[in-house]
C-alpha cells in the first residue's frame, strides 16, 4: 500500500512505531500529563490496564483517583462520567466492547447528548467514551458489532473512528479536549495491524505502515476533518475504520484509480471533502461493516445525492454488513470483504 498518502507523521517532534493500542494509550498518557482533570474509568481499566491493554500503566502513573476500575454497569459508568463532567472533570470512560454500550443508551442519548442544550450551556458533558468495535476476530454476536449508526442518529453527540495509530492518537487527544460528548469507536480488528480483508492470509502489523509512525508527544487531528488516503479520479470511496484498509487493498489489487476518503469523524462530517471528491470523480461508493438498513451509509448516500446529483454518472453504491446479527462461524461470509467490495466497484465503474 505504498500509494497511501496523508497518513504520515507530522513535521515536528519525535516519533516512534506504535500499534493502535499503544497510540491510544499514549494519547491518554499525554493528555493526563497536561490536564489534571482528565480521568480514565471503566471495567478492568485500572490495575490490569484494560482487556485490550489500552490503559496499561496509566493507573500506576496517575494514581487510582484518576484511573480506576468500575463496577460492571455501563449505565452507571456513563452516568457517573456525566456527573464528573458536570463537576468540571474531563472523563474518558471505556466501554469494554461496543456490544455492551446498550445499557448506557439512556445516559448517552437522553443525558450526555442533551445536557448542553437543555441547560442553556450551564452544564456540559465533556466526556469521551472509548469503545472497541467491529468484527473479524471470531467474537460472535456480542464482541463484533458496529453500532455507530445508532449514535450518529442522535443529535448532540460526536462520533469518531480512527483507521491508523497516528490518527487514533491525534483524534483521541482532540476528542478528550472537545467540550462535547464524543464516542470514540476503536476498530479492534486493526489494533495490531492493518487488515486487507483477506482473513486467510498472514496478519500484518503496523511496523511497515506509514500510519504506524506516531509522535510521542502532543498533537491533535481536528474532529470533522476527513483524510484522503489515496487520491484518484475514477471513483470516490467513502469509508472509515477497518474498511479503509480493506478498500485500499481492493483498489490496489484491481488497479482502479479510486479516491479513498477516510472519514475519521462521522459527526461532524467533513462534507466539503466528500463533495469536492464526488464532484471530481462523478461516482461514489460507501463502505461500512455495520448493518445496512438505516446505517450511516444511508445518510452519506442521501447527502451525496442532495449535493452532487448533477455530477453523478452512476447510482451511489453501498457496501455493508448484512442485516443480521453478527454470526460466529460464518463471520467471513458476513464481513464486507474484498469480493463484495470488488464486485460493487466493478459494477459502479462498468460504464466508465
Amino acid at each position, binding site marked *: 500500500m505504498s500509494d497511501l498518502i496523508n497518513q504520515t507523521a507530522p513535521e515536528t517532534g519525535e516519533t516512534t512505531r506504535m500499534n493502535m493500542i499503544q497510540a491510544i494509550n499514549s494519547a491518554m498518557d499525554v493528555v493526563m500529563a497536561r490536564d489534571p482533570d482528565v480521568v480514565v474509568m471503566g471495567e*478492568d481499566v485500572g490495575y490490569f490496564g484494560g482487556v485490550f491493554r489500552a490503559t496499561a500503566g496509566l493507573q500506576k502513573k496517575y494514581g487510582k483517583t484518576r484511573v480506576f476500575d468500575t463496577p460492571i454497569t455501563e449505565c452507571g459508568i456513563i452516568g457517573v462520567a456525566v456527573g464528573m463532567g458536570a463537576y468540571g472533570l474531563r472523563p474518558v470512560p471505556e466501554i469494554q466492547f461496543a456490544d455492551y454500550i446498550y445499557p448506557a443508551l439512556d445516559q448517552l442519548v437522553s443525558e450526555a447528548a442533551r445536557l448542553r442544550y437543555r441547560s442553556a450551556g450551564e452544564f456540559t458533558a465533556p466526556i469521551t467514551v472509548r469503545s472497541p468495535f467491529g468484527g473479524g476476530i471470531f467474537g460472535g454476536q456480542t464482541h463484533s458489532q458496529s453500532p455507530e449508526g445508532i449514535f450518529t442518529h442522535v443529535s448532540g453527540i460526536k462520533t469518531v473512528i480512527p483507521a491508523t495509530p497516528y490518527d487514533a492518537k491525534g483524534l483521541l487527544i482532540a476528542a478528550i479536549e472537545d467540550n462535547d460528548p464524543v464516542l470514540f469507536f476503536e476498530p479492534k480488528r486493526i489494533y495490531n495491524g492493518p487488515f486487507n480483508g483477506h482473513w486467510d492470509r498472514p496478519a500484518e502489523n503496523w511496523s511497515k505502515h506509514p500510519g504506524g509512525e506516531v509522535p510521542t508527544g502532543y498533537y491533535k487531528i481536528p474532529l470533522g476533518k476527513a483524510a484522503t488516503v489515496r487520491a484518484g479520479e475514477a471513483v470516490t470511496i467513502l469509508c472509515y475504520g477497518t474498511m479503509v484498509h480493506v478498500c485500499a487493498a481492493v483498489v490496489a489489487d484491481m488497479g482502479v484509480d479510486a479516491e479513498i476518503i477516510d472519514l475519521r469523524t462521522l459527526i461532524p462530517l467533513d462534507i466539503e471533502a466528500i463533495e469536492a471528491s464526488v464532484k471530481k470523480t462523478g461516482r461514489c461508493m460507501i463502505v461500512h461493516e455495520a448493518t445496512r438498513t438505516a446505517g450511516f451509509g444511508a445518510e452519506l448516500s442521501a447527502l451525496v445525492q442532495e449535493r452532487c446529483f448533477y455530477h453523478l454518472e452512476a447510482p451511489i453504491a453501498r457496501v455493508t454488513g448484512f442485516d443480521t446479527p453478527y454470526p460466529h462461524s460464518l463471520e467471513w461470509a458476513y464481513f464486507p470483504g474484498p*469480493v463484495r467490495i470488488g464486485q460493487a466497484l466493478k459494477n459502479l465503474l462498468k460504464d466508465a
Partner: protein
Amino acid sequence: MAVPPEGHSRANLAPLQLHVPEPKFRPGDAVDFASVEVPPAGAQRRPDTAAPADSFHELAYTLVRVLDEEGRAVGPWDPKLSPDRLRRMLRHMVLLRAFDERMFRAQRQGKTSFYMKALGEEAVAVAAAHALDYEDMCFPSYRQQGLLIARDWPLVDMMNQIYSNSADRLGGKQLPIMYSAKEAGFFSISGNLTTQYPQAVGWAMASAAKGDTRIAAVWCGEGSTAEGDFHSACTFAAVYRAPVVMNVVNNQWAISSFSGFAGAEATTFAARAIGYGIAGLRVDGNDALAVYAATQWAAERARTNQGATLIEHFTYRTEGHSTSDDPTQYRSAGEPTAWPLGDPIRRLKDHLIALGEWDEKRHADQDREVAEEVRAAQKAAEANGILGHGLHQPLDSLFDGVFEEMPWHLREQRQQMLDEEQASGRPWARK
C-alpha cells in the same frame, strides 16, 4: 445570598477523599485469607420455608455450611441425601471438570475460538440442578454449563456448539459455550451480562400467572450484580413475589476486578435481598450439600408462593476468566491454593468416603471412565467438524432466524451473498 448551614464553615473542612477499592493481594504477594470469615459447618439455623423474609436476616451475612472439616454432614441444613444421589452429584462434578479441561485444551489447540471453565465452582451449578425439578427453568450465565451436565445433556451436543460444526443446533451463530437447550430447561445464554435476571423473573411471573407449578432459577456472577438488570429483577421479584431462585455466584473475581468493585467491601451480595424485602441466604459455594440444601429450601419457598430467594454462593474462580485471560497479571498466584473453602469435588468425595460409600480406588476408576467418556464425545463431535476448517453450515443459513419470515431486503442480501460466493471461487469450502 443563601445562608450557610449551621455548625461549620467550608473553609475549616478537611478535604474529601475518593475511596477506590483495592484487593488484598496482587501478583507476587503472599496470600493469607485469615480475614475471610468461615463459620463452622452446621452452625446456622434453618428457618421454616414459610417464615417471613425479614425473620432471618442474619443468614445473609454468614455462610450456610453443611460439610465439616472431617467430611461429615452436620446441622439443620444437611439435606440428608441418599448415597446414590451423592455419588451422582460427585460424578457430575467430576465430569464437568474433565469436560472443561478437555475443551479448554481444544481451544488452545486452535479447534475453536473461545472457552470458559468453571474450575472450583462445580458445586454451584451441579448441586443446584440436583435440587431443582427437571422441569424448572434455568436462566444461566456462561459459567453454569454444570446445569446441562447435571441434567445429563449429551456432551457431544455441547461440543458441537463449541466447535460451531455441522451438528451445532445453533447453526454456528453463537459464540462457543453460549448454549441453548430448551428441552433441558436451559435458556439461551446471552453474551451481555445479567440480561437473564429480569427474564427469569418474567418467566416465573408467567408461571405464577398461569397457575403452573414450575419455578425459575437464575444465575449471575458477583460482578454482574452491578448491572441495572440485576436490580430491576430484584424489584420485580419482590413486588410480584415471583417464584424464582436468584443465584449470585461470588467467585471473588470479575475478569481482573475483585468483588470490591461490585460492593463486597461494604456488605455481602446476599444482603442485597434485605433491601428489596426478599429472602437472602449466603452459602458455602464449595459445599455441594449446602448448595443443594439452600436451593431446595429456596425452591420450596418459591413453590409455596413465599416468593423469591437470593442465594449468594461464596466460592472462588480458580483459573482465568476465559481462554482470553491471564490472571497472573492482576492477582496473586497463591490465591487459588490458599482459598479457605477447599475444592468442592474433594469435599464431596471425602464425605462419601467418610460415609463408607466411596473409596479412593472407585474415585480413580471414575476419573478414568469420565476422561474416556469425554474423549469419546470429543472424537464424535470433531467428526462433525471444528471451527475454521471447512464450511459447516450452508452459507445462506446466515439469514435464517433473523425474523420468522424473511423480508425482501434480507432475501436480496442473501442472493447477493450467494453471488459473491460464486464470484469468489468458493473460498469458504477450504480445508
